[in-house]
Structures are given as C-alpha cells and as structure tokens.
C-alpha cells in the first residue's frame, strides 16, 4: 500500500524517457514547494539565533552572526523575564493527561461502533461529530461562570476536562475507522475457536488498532498543546499554558523579535519532534483510518 510506482517507466522507449524527464521536473517542483512551505519556519529559527538588532533589519540580515541571546532571554537567564517553565509544564500536563483520558474513553466507544456495531451507529457517530461543530466559544461563558463559582478558575484540571471533550469526537471517529479495518472473518473465527474477549482483543484487535491508537494520541496531543482560547480565558497566573505565555510575551513587553522567535521555536518543539517521529502514523491515522 505504501510502495509507490517508482519502478514505472524504466524501459528505454521514447515515451518512457519522456515520462522520466517530466518525472524529474515534477520532483524538482515538489522540492521547490517543500522549501517554500518550510521557509517561514527556517526564518523563524534563524531569527531566533540572531541578536535583536540583527533580527529587525531591512533587508534581512541572513548572514549575521549567531547568538543565543533570544533563548537566554526566553528562559529568563538574564533576569528580565518570567520563567517559561511553569507554562511548559502546564501544557505538558494538560496535553498528556487529556490525551490519556481521550484514549480511555474513545477506544471502548469506537469498539462499540465498529467491531460490535450498535444499532444506528452512524447516528451516534454523527452526534459525536456534531459536538465538534459547536463553536467552542458558544459553551465558554457557562463554563467560565461555573469555574468562577466553584473556584476552578486558573486550574489546569479544568483545561484537562475541556481538552478531553474537544478531542474526543475526532478520536472516536478515527478509532472507529481503524477498528473497522479488523476483518470480521477473523473475529468470527476467533469466537468459533472459543477465544474469550481478552484473547480476541489482545491477539486480533490490538495489532490492527495500535497504529490507529498512536495516530489518535498524536492528533489529540497536538490539538491540546496548541489550544489558546480556553487557556486564555480560563487560566491566569498559575495554570497558564505555553500558547498563553507566548501571547503575553508580545503584549506586555513590546516586541523583541529574536526572543519571540526563540519562544515560538521552543514551544513548537515538542509537537515538531512528535510529528516528525510519527509522520507515517500521522498520514495513516488522518486518512486511511478516517475514511475506511
């Protein structure tokens, strides 16, 4: 499935040669597109290693000497700023815990929708998806008022609950499609052979579902790590997450481009690393799972 038609057109006929030539032209086009899309990120990283004066010049100072000034500023080493560690830890807690909760809730639900489908599963699935279509802001005010009255404001656990509900519908959708890949014949064969539920789950369902679980977890982690609106409204000094910290960096102190770029790079790093490491899973998870 993942093998591509690379061997296509190895023959020496003129048509094949022509195809090979367009092929390498298209390869070049792909490279140019890749570089074009990557350029802003490259610029962000480069700027983060410049001094503040080199960062804000026109024309851009591509070749200027490198400096760790932006990073030192960001981590508060120069004593001028606020420590970024609490927000980073908050983000990590909220994302990891809510992702675990999402899996805990989504996997059984997907099992009920795919492997032993309940009646009208598409209605149930539609309900799950429709909760995703409610603009988050529409429920924000009551959540805010309740949090205010129960003292949950500025608590990371409120965000954990909200992020779980935010990612659960997509997770159920993705997991259902992954589990639908489990061949029914294998399940039937297992039950004829007298395999219990536990055996069926560990021996037949799990191997097929594992990549799906990984992809679902990754997507859920990314969206939680990235979330701004809820975090901004519902947290403050104690529970602020990295995105909130990032917006505060600009508004409160004026603009320090190198520092902002350093901050943006550091805060994006966990998602970048996870995403790069699991990009095959991401490709499969987003689509193969979701459509089949």
């Amino acid at each position, binding site marked *: 499935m993942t093998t591509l038609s690379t061997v296509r057109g190895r023959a020496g006929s003129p048509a094949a040669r022509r195809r090979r030539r367009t092929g390498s032209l298209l390869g070049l086009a792909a490279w140019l597109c890749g*570089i074009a899309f990557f350029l802003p990120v490259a610029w962000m990283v480069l700027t983060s290693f410049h001094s503040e004066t080199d960062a804000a010049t026109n*024309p851009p100072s591509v070749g200027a000497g490198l400096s760790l000034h932006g990073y030192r500023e960001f981590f508060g080493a120069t004593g001028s700023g606020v420590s970024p560690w609490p927000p980073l830890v908050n983000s990590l807690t909220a994302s990891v815990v809510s992702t675990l909760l999402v899996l805990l809730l989504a996997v059984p639900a997907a099992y009920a929708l795919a492997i032993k489908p309940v*009646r009208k599963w598409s209605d149930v699935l539609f309900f799950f998806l429709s909760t995703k279509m409610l603009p988050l802001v529409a429920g924000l005010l*009551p959540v805010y008022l309740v949090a205010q009255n129960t003292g949950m404001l500025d608590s990371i656990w409120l965000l954990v609950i909200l992020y779980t509900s935010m990612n*659960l519908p997509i997770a159920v959708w993705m997991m259902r499609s992954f589990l639908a890949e489990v061949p029914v014949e294998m399940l039937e064969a297992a039950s004829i052979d007298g395999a219990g539920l536990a055996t069926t789950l560990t021996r037949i369902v799990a191997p097929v579902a594992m990549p799906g679980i990984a992809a679902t977890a990754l997507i859920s982690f990314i969206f939680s790590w990235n979330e*701004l609106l809820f975090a901004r409204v519902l947290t403050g000094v104690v529970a602020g997450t990295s995105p909130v910290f990032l917006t505060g960096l600009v508004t409160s102190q004026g603009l320090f481009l190198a520092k902002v770029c350093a901050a943006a790079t550091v805060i994006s790093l966990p998602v970048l690393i996870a995403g790069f490491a699991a990009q095959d899973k991401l490709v499969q998870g987003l689509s193969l799972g979701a459509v089949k």
Partner: protein
Amino acid sequence: MPTHTTEPAPAADAALVPAPRGPNVRARRTGRAKDWARRAPLLPALVFLVVVTQLPFLATVVISFTRWNALAPDNRGFAALDNYRAVFTDPAMRASVGTTVLLTVTVVLVSLLLGLGLALLLDRGFRGRGIVRTLLITPFLIVPVASALLWKHALYNASYGLLNGSLTWIWRLFGSEHPPQPDWMTDSPLAAVEMSLIWQWTPFMMLILLAGLQSRASDAVEAARMDGASAWDIFRYLTLPHLRRYLELAALLGTVYVVQNFDAVFTITSGGLGTANLPYTIYQTVYQSHDYGRASAQGVVVVLCSLLVATFALRTVSSLLREEVTS
C-alpha cells in the same frame, strides 16, 4: 455490513414488567442484556460529552434569554427575545458572519487545492521524497499562536518583515533604492490572515489526500496506462473518484477547525479592519462588553447555523457516513 441486533427496548419497562416466565421471554431478556452489553462501552464517552459540551450549551441557551451584563449586575432579568433582536440587527455581527464564511471558504478551498497538488507531486518516486514530505508538514506542526506571531512580526511587518525585506533586497539587485514596501496587514488584513491559515492548513489537507492516493490500487492505473489513457484521463476517471471520500473528509475537518479559528484573528489583526470572525466577536462581547446575554444569543445563533450546514453537508452531500462504509 455489520449485523444488527433486534430493536432494543427502553430500559424503563424492565422495571415495570413483572418477572417474565417462559423461554421466549427469557430469550428476549438475554437479547436485551446483550444490547446493553454492546452499548456499555459507548456510555462513558457519551455521558462525558453530554455533560461537558451539551450542558454548558443548554446554559448558554438559558442565558441568551436573560438581560445580563456583568458591568450592571443589578439589572438582571428575563429579556425574552431582546438579545436575539440585538444580534440580528447588529451590523458588526452580520459583518462577522460574512467574514467567517469568506475566511473559511477561502482557506479550506485554497488549501484543499494546494494540498491536492502537493499530494499528487509527492505520490511519485523522486529523490528526497521523505525529506520534502517532512518539510511540507512542518507548518501544521508549528503551534498556531507561534505561527500567527511569526507571520505578523517576522514576515508581514512593514519595516523589517521578511516579505518587505526581500522586496528591498531584490530591488537593490537591480540598483533601485525605492522598493515597494506595502503594509500587508493594513492593506489587505483579511488576506493576511487567510494567507497564514492557508500555509498552516495545506499540509493537513496534503497528509489526508496523500494517504488517499497511496491506498489506491495501482493495477487499475497501470491497466489504464497500457490502454493508452492520458494522465488527465487517469486523474479524472480513476484518481478523483477514488479521492472523493478523502476530499470530503479533508474539507469537513478543515472547515470544523477553520470556522472556529481564534488564534490567527486574535494575534494578527485583533479582529480589526473587518477580520473579526464569529468566535472573535463572541469573545469580544463577553470579555469587552461583558454582555453575557447577548454573547449567549450570538453563540446560540452560531451553533444553529453550524448544525444546519453540517447536517446538510454530512447527510446529503457527503458519503462519509453511509453505512455501507464498513462492508
């Protein structure tokens, strides 16, 4: 096609009906128990979602009928339809509906088309394909606020952003000291927001479509080529129909996330210059006007509209939820 069980009876009448006797009833009873066993794994997720998403929304509906401004706490009461009247006659609200539609449609369509093009390019073997894919998905992996800040300050900024800096550099190559230096965010604010979002969402579309392309059986394409079909014919009659569900999925998920975009609008333009979309407008009504009643009415209107569109799109146009899928 999954096998369906018999119609499940509501749980309530189990308690009302006296203890049943006879094999027939017993069979029905175990069937019912089985139904519940099947449904049990669904319940935690359902209950959780209902509590966390539907209850607040119900509260929003209730608040939308009250007169409630946090700045005037003594003046609270039943407002009937006043908030809704205010919402429908508010030109800013109407403008933000237009902005939301325009922003969403533009971003989803353009990134879908670009994503399709890129997925087709990447679906071929060439040297460094893995690296190019990694380069291409990077924008999707950058934290949205970070990418909004990046576009606003490092790229768009009129005096030292990369865009104008490059213009200066290119103009100097040709010996001119007077390069054009447009102020991107003031001259075309909505396009500036759209541009950053398209950059961010194109990789997402590409990922979905790429996997779609890779799941295509290559023998049909091979056979078509043997029969002398042109590249366009193969694309039009084989690739595109196969991709349909993937295109729908990409558009659906993209729309769900772009409609709700807050980060880019908030960061790049702060909703100014005609870029305030619905989430931003509601945010403003709550946190700047402190008009809880009106904000709730806005929220309810938005939810009804989204559900209307979503139901229509999912039920009539899309093939994603057809039950044949699992066959």
